[in-house]
């Protein structure tokens, strides 16, 4: 499989917002995300996961190293790389349907086709009947479904997800994870998924990138060889492949957390 996203020797410093001191966020990151693959990224807080995502999204300019998609250097945001943010990024003044169709609207897709595509994705994420609701009328889980559908509907080649389920309750999170798995099967999108939950990383990832404490380096890549169709939470706790991957990721992350606390 060809690599969709390639990051080589990416190093990043940024000035702290209050003190102005230089923060060393990423150190010589090298990684590849293959076409159609779902990769999860875990690491201690402040290890530069979000910095990496923002650079890949094109939202954060960088100087050292390189980040590219399909061999083209990333130099700004593009609708080819959609982002699902942690929370509260769908627009409060647009209804669910209008939020989901926003990407197509920006591209100038005519209304008829737009509405057809929007209703497809509303079905896919299970928001039928909520088309005309405004975000403040939705639960946290529904808002995130809407956010996922919005990104998908714009049909990006790559989806970058920044702890998208972190702010919802545990029960909803499990449902959302299974839904995302289903969506990954249905759409075959290339997905980079950042999380601080080890379970989530092991459940969703084809591979899991474990980052070190700041400055973030890629410490290890954990392969999770479970077919997507088999990934159902009810079966996971008896699946030795899941348990092994989860425990390995957990051990690595714990070590890094201890380093960062020391």
């Amino acid at each position, binding site marked *: 499989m060809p690599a969709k996203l390639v990051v080589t020797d990416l190093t990043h410093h940024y000035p702290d917002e209050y003190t102005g001191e230089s923060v060393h966020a990423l150190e010589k990151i090298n990684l590849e995300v293959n076409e159609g693959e779902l990769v999860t990224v875990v690491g201690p807080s402040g290890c530069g996961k979000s910095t990496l995502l923002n650079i890949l999204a094109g939202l954060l300019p960088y100087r050292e190293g390189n980040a590219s998609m399909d061999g083209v250097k990333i130099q700004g945001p593009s*609708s080819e790389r959609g982002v699902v943010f942690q929370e*509260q990024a769908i*627009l409060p003044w647009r209804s669910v349907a209008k939020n989901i169709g926003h990407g197509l609207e920006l591209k100038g897709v005519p209304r008829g086709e737009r509405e057809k595509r929007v209703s497809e994705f509303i079905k896919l994420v299970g928001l039928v009947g909520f088309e005309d609701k405004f975000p403040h009328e939705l639960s946290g889980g529904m808002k995130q479904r809407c956010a996922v559908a919005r990104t998908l509907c714009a049909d990006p080649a790559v989806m970058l997800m920044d702890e998208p389920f972190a702010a919802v309750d545990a029960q909803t999170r499990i449902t959302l994870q299974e839904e995302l798995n289903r969506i990954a099967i249905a759409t075959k999108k290339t997905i980079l998924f950042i999380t601080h939950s080890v379970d989530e990383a092991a459940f969703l990832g084809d591979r899991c990138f474990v980052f070190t404490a700041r400055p973030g380096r890629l410490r290890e890549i954990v392969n999770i060889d479970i077919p997507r169709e088999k990934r159902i939470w009810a079966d996971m706790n008896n699946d030795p492949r899941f348990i092994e991957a989860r425990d390995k990721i957990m051990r690595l992350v714990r070590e890094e957390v201890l380093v960062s606390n020391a």
Partner: protein
Amino acid sequence: MRNNLNRFRAFWRHFPAAGAINLALIILCILLIWELISSTIDNPSRYLPSPILVALSSVDMIYKGLLPSYFGDTLIRLITGSSIGLALGIPFGLIIGINRTSADIFYPVMNFFQSVSGIAIFPIVVIWWGNSDTTVLVVILYTSFFPIAFTVLSGVREVPMQYIHAARTMGATRFQVIRDVLLPGSMPHIATGSRLSIGFAWRAVIAGEMLAGREGLGWMIFTAQDADKTSEVILGMVMIGVSWIVLDHYLLRPLEADTIERWGLVQR
């Protein structure tokens, strides 16, 4: 006893037109107190004419066609002046809210002029344009510009970065970000700012007419005082207050309800 009172309150709240009846009762109380004071003082027609006398003078003024004409003049001035003020203030606030450099240049200038109130610039405007309609209009425009420009400025800056990032990663151009994110995102501030601006403009129009006008409600109050017609002075004051309440209730409030309340951007 207390229980009965609460039940009555609940019943009254759901009674049709309870709001209107409440308002009517309050007005009636005020009129009664006014009448009471008026009937106990010496020379009430100079110091505080009774409500009935004021009502009669309004009949007289309407009959002569003066009140409708003055009221119309004032309203047209308000609408013209504050619409231009808003039409300039909203984009101006947007631009300096978006662009750091223009904010660095214009913010101190705006801050300076904001402190020089409409009344304080009056003399210089009179020197430039004389006692004319233009003078009054310029002062209204000046007065309504700053509240809206400042509130829109802070509104733009308070739009969460996430919204802008989301739009940009869906391929939004700079213009599309402004149209779809920054403008609606500052709607709560635009609504509050417009209300402030029009409120200030309403005061400025009256003051302006007093100082430089030849017609309008402000002018009516001013000349009535000269002519010792206190009832017309009070009539003018009542007209000013009532028109504002009507304007606010039937124009500005529904505008808010339709936008920012629908979007859940205000909680109470």
